[in-house]
């Protein structure tokens, strides 16, 4: 059994006493070195979860435990050392006047010596494939490049969990692809838990587990394949079903019995080929 890294225990949150609950009685666990996707429509509470995970917000009810420490005023700075976060808007989290300055910002805050910073900057920029932009100013970067710089800045502080809070929502398809590729590589190469928060079902295929949020509650928690199977229900809560899943459904309507909920083109073609050979 894997070690629990983040625990949400009956967490409820709202922005003020007269405001509606954004999260209501939410419980789940996230394990070490796991990739979890949290999906839901806009306003489903998914981004609030991210902010609760490193003490940018505190819940009114329930408890959040990260790496054995409860998230509260006393531990929050300790917790921020191993929880790295990348936010939605590429511009509003870029502090430095160049890429390397921005990557250094987190390390400077933690008093990392200058010589060490220089080594780590080189290392993390390589990991996100941004070596050649070390001295570039933010307004000369694309959204995807800014987000990769943000990821590098987080990696530089060697966190144990990386949270991407809708980090691809404002990017064009190329930027989105770059980020997803970068993230997948990082997950493979290092022992880091990854939490990607998104409303794009295409992005959850590679995750090990998906938590679906709806109206402040955990609507479902399962493997991507199992989530994809619930097409009609997903549509009802404002999410889109990928092409492959829709096609599989339509094929079944036509008497082609696709069984193992396919996740991509190769999988569905493989099944079709098998069926074809038997006919």
């Amino acid at each position: 059994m894997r070690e629990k890294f983040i625990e949400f225990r009956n967490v409820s949150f709202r922005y003020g006493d007269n405001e509606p609950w954004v999260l209501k009685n939410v419980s789940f666990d996230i394990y070490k070195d796991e990739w979890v996707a949290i999906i839901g429509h806009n306003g489903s509470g998914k981004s609030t979860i991210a902010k609760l995970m490193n003490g940018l917000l505190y819940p009114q009810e329930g408890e959040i435990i990260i790496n054995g420490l409860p998230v509260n005023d006393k531990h929050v700075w300790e917790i921020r050392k191993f929880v790295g976060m990348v936010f939605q808007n590429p511009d509003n989290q870029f502090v430095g006047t160049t890429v390397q300055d921005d990557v250094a910002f987190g390390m400077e805050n933690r008093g990392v010596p200058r010589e060490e910073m220089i080594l780590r900057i080189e290392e993390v920029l390589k990991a996100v494939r941004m070596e050649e932009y070390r001295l570039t100013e933010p307004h000369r970067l694309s959204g995807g490049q800014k987000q990769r710089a943000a990821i590098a800045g987080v990696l530089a502080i060697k966190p144990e969990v990386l949270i991407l809070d809708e980090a691809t929502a404002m990017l064009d398809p190329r930027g989105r692809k770059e980020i997803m590729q970068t993230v997948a590589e990082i997950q493979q190469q290092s022992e880091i838990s990854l939490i990607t928060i998104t409303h794009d079902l295409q992005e959850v295929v590679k995750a090990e587990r998906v938590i679906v949020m709806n109206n402040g509650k955990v609507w479902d928690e399962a493997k991507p394949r199992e989530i994809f199977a619930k097409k009609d229900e997903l549509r009802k809560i404002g999410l889109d079903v990928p092409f492959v899943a829709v096609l599989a459904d339509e094929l079944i309507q036509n008497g082609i019995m696709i069984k193992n909920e396919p996740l991509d083109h190769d999988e569905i073609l493989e099944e079709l080929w098998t069926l074809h050979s038997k006919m």
Partner: protein
Amino acid sequence: MDITFKDVSFIYQANSPFAHIALKDVSFHIPSGSFVAIIGHTGSGKSTLIQHLNGLITPTKGEVRIGDYRIHSGKKPDSLKELRSRVGVVFQYPEHQLFDETVEKDIAFGPKNFGVPAVEISKRINEILPAVGLDENLLDRSPFDLSGGQMRRVAIAGVLAVKPEILVLDEPTAGLDPKGQREMMDMFYNLHKDQGLTTVLVTHSMEDAVKYADQVIIMNKGSKYMEGPPEEVFVQRELLNQVQLDIPEIIQFLHAFETRFGSHIPFKRQTIERLAQEISQVVKGADLRE
């Protein structure tokens, strides 16, 4: 109104060390009443292109014709205001342009500037609200109290209230969740049909281009790269790959299917439902090639 570009070039900060060519000899024609999708990477010149449509910028070289209006290099038409009342532009994240005290005042801002009488404005607002999916009781609220999705609809209503003949949409669904995106695109398509608009959509979504556009213009590094109906443009996989553009998923799938099964199912903008029927025929052993 027709839109014609004739050898249009545009250079930002010409004659300075920061000079940057944004458009290079772009020519095309968009007939009145069509729905055109403009596609290209960030920085391909799309945004610069659409700013020519209502005279926000004038070409450095060449000529833009919108109906009878002519915009030459360095010279804006005398009737610029009139042109802008006939070409509505919904910019990316249009909710950022909201500023007035109430939703109603903000929607009325555009038509008021263009001299539409107050009675006519309130009549238009009543028509537009249901079309953009806003409730009437929001009219007295401050636009800043609304949700992101509602704010965007208010901003769009503000553009529609001018009753433009050409509607320019710059990635109107950016940042919305899938359901919101679908609803918004359907809304624009209905408006396009009902009011006989000429619609110019800047998008990154090949799926939207396939679904709604009659004509596709693909931009690359400031030049026009491809042009034509979606079913002709998107099947040219190699050309699109060369500029690293996505291919609509259905076409990718058809290609993978052909490689695997050896039978060619042509792309004719079919629905997934229809596609499933065609596939099942092949899988069940019928030969489409005949």
